[in-house]
């Protein structure tokens, strides 16, 4: 089974290179679907295996990595299906070079898979850097000034973030060099064994740098400013992957550093930082969600808010750790679906302004209904999945030493819900303008969001034992 680990990132990589040579769009999309399907099958087969699967010294996947890998794989398959009508029927400008789209997407998948299947912190860092490289051309897919600006901010801020993360990785190496024979190769296992006798100032420096560095990529405040621009300017399938899969990869990288801190027996400092940055992100996102006029930006700010929820959940510990990992699954399902639906709205109305795109339910009813459902889900309405994960985090906070954290948490979530409702509900229900008409919705462009909505609903109603076991394992490994 272990050979599946290199297979998971080599296959998309090789197929991506092959797609580079293909001029025909249809063949390229075929390669995309084929790669997505192979990746999905490979990921599913890993669930049958043992808790930890290793291949050589560099590749190793544990339950936490497997959960994040599975999110990526499922989202990618659904996004690939959505991409077919998007590329074939979309209105692209002449310069947008649609044949580059598929190779970059597959390269992006390869890099994200590598993040989940390695526990060598140096290789993981390289993979996170690879995700930036592969996704920047995707952000600048439409050769517009706005997209160029977004791609520039994305490159500059994420490169600075990733450089800080590299420095953090080096600091961890320095911290481990105090322990004889421990520094062999920066693997998670070796580092966790060495952690109790590491040089503390260096370990703390390493965590701060990794949190700020990878946190930039994850969209945590204060270096989140690239995220709303990038996610709103990128093509919708790319936004769905950036929000649903890439942010999780960066979160996983932070969790790896957190695991080393836990093993050192001195994680209180790391927990405090996670809670503070988490709440700062939720608060800043809320401030920009209220009165937001651009629905894609609104979704992007909601991603920042949810990343904050996840960081705060891990920081709080206990049952909230389970909640945080569960929330990353829930958020990915809902937000990827919402971004794909936003792509449908954009195509039907030709604007990203929530005020001008009135009457979504009237013009594109399937998209409208699904968008309403997923908005309620991500807003935290029962019985969808996000309600339960956020409830767990709230419960832990209110029972903890400082219950006011729980009160703050719920109040901020309420503000976020109202902010989203204020922009989305008038847009969905509002009366259409003079050009009232129904627009045909291609089946392939609604089937993926439909699957995501069903997923978000069903894990809210019933969490299958295989998933809840995995979540429990992951939460235990993360000090929950």
């Amino acid at each position, binding site marked *: 089974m272990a050979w599946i680990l290199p297979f998971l990132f080599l296959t998309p990589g090789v197929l991506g290179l092959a797609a580079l040579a293909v001029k025909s769009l249809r063949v390229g999309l075929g390669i995309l679907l084929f790669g997505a399907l192979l990746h999905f099958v490979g990921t599913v087969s890993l669930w049958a295996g043992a808790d930890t699967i290793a291949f050589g010294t560099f590749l190793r996947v544990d339950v936490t990595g497997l959960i994040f890998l599975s999110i990526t794989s499922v989202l990618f398959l659904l996004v690939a299906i959505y991409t077919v009508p998007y590329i074939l029927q979309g209105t692209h400008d002449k310069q947008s070079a649609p044949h580059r789209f598929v190779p970059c997407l597959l390269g992006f998948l390869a890099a994200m898979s590598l993040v989940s299947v390695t526990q060598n*912190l*140096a*290789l993981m*860092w*390289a993979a996170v*850097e*690879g995700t*930036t*490289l592969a996704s*920047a051309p995707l952000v*600048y897919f439409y050769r517009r*000034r*706005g997209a*160029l*600006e*977004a*791609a*520039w*901010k994305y*490159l*500059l801020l994420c*490169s*600075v973030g*990733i*450089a800080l993360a*590299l*420095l953090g*990785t*080096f600091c961890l*190496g*320095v*911290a*481990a*060099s*105090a322990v004889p024979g421990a*520094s062999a*190769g*920066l693997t998670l296992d070796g580092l966790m064994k060495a952690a109790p006798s590491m*040089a503390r*100032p*260096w370990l703390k*420096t390493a965590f701060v740098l990794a949190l700020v560095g990878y946190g930039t990529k994850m969209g945590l405040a204060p270096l989140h400013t690239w995220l*709303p*621009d990038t996610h*709103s*300017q990128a093509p919708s399938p790319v936004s769905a992957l950036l929000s649903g899969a890439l942010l999780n990869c960066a979160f996983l990288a932070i969790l790896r550093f957190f695991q080393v801190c836990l093993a050192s027996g001195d994680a209180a400092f790391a927990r405090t930082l996670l809670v503070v940055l988490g709440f700062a992100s939720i608060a800043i996102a809320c401030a*920009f969600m209220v009165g*937001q006029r651009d629905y894609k*930006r609104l979704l992007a700010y909601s991603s920042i808010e949810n990343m904050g929820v996840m960081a705060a959940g891990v920081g709080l510990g206990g049952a909230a750790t389970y909640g945080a990992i569960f929330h990353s699954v829930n958020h990915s399902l809902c937000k990827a679906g919402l971004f794909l639906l936003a792509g449908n709205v954009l195509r039907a109305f030709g604007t990203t302004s929530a005020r001008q795109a009135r009457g979504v339910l009237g013009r594109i009813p399937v998209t409208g209904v699904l968008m309403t459902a997923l908005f309620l889900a991500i807003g935290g309405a029962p019985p969808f999945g996000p309600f339960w994960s956020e409830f767990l985090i709230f419960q832990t906070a209110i029972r903890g030493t400082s219950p006011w954290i729980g009160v703050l948490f719920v109040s901020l979530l309420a503000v976020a819900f109202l902010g989203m409702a204020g922009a989305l509900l008038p847009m969905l229900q509002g009366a259409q303008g003079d050009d009232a008409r129904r627009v045909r919705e291609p089946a392939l462009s609604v089937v993926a969001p439909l699957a995501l909505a069903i997923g978000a609903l069903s894990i809210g109603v019933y969490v299958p034992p295989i998933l809840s076991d995995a979540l429990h394992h992951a939460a235990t490994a993360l000090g929950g």
Partner: protein
Amino acid sequence: MTGYADFLLLVVAALSLSIVATSRLTGCVRASALQGVALSLLPLALWGGALDRHAVPVATMSLGALAVKAVIIPLLLARAIREANVRRESEPFISLHFSVLIAAALVGFSFWLGTILILPKPAPTPLLVPMAFANLLVGFLVLIVRRKAVTQVVGYLMLENGIFIFGQTLVEEVPFAVELGILLDLLVGVFVMGIAINHISREFEHIDTELLSTLKD
């Protein structure tokens, strides 16, 4: 060999300060290229005595830094400057004189930081850690203060150079991580940025990032 290494580190720091004080874009790019040359010699000066053990990391770091930092990126930046036809920094957010003062304070702060964060195993030269932090912080300053995309890339390069210097402390411990990290950072981050700058210069005819601020709330 630490004599050479210390000399190189001081050259790097002096070049960083000169970048802060320069408003001509070509001057900044030239200083950054020189910094690349000095950095490519640093691994040789530090580890030249033990080349038999560290030949691979030293070779990759030296040649990588020379090719990317001293040749490819400066050429890309110079082309962007030529195409966009800009010469000088237009009113940085903080005046050049004041930025030099801040930079000097940051260098002092880095020496203080070097006394707090003590390496478990002594560094090849005591200047290494303070100079790494100094370059990193001054690079940050340039990134924040300057408006042109070209000078922002130069600032990012300085920040990266700081990490390059810091990486030298780990050549014995985790050579793989150091090589991988440094090479990728060089190629990926800056190379892609070089391409992006050329897109920007073509699209906007000048490379002022002030123009790149239409996306807001």
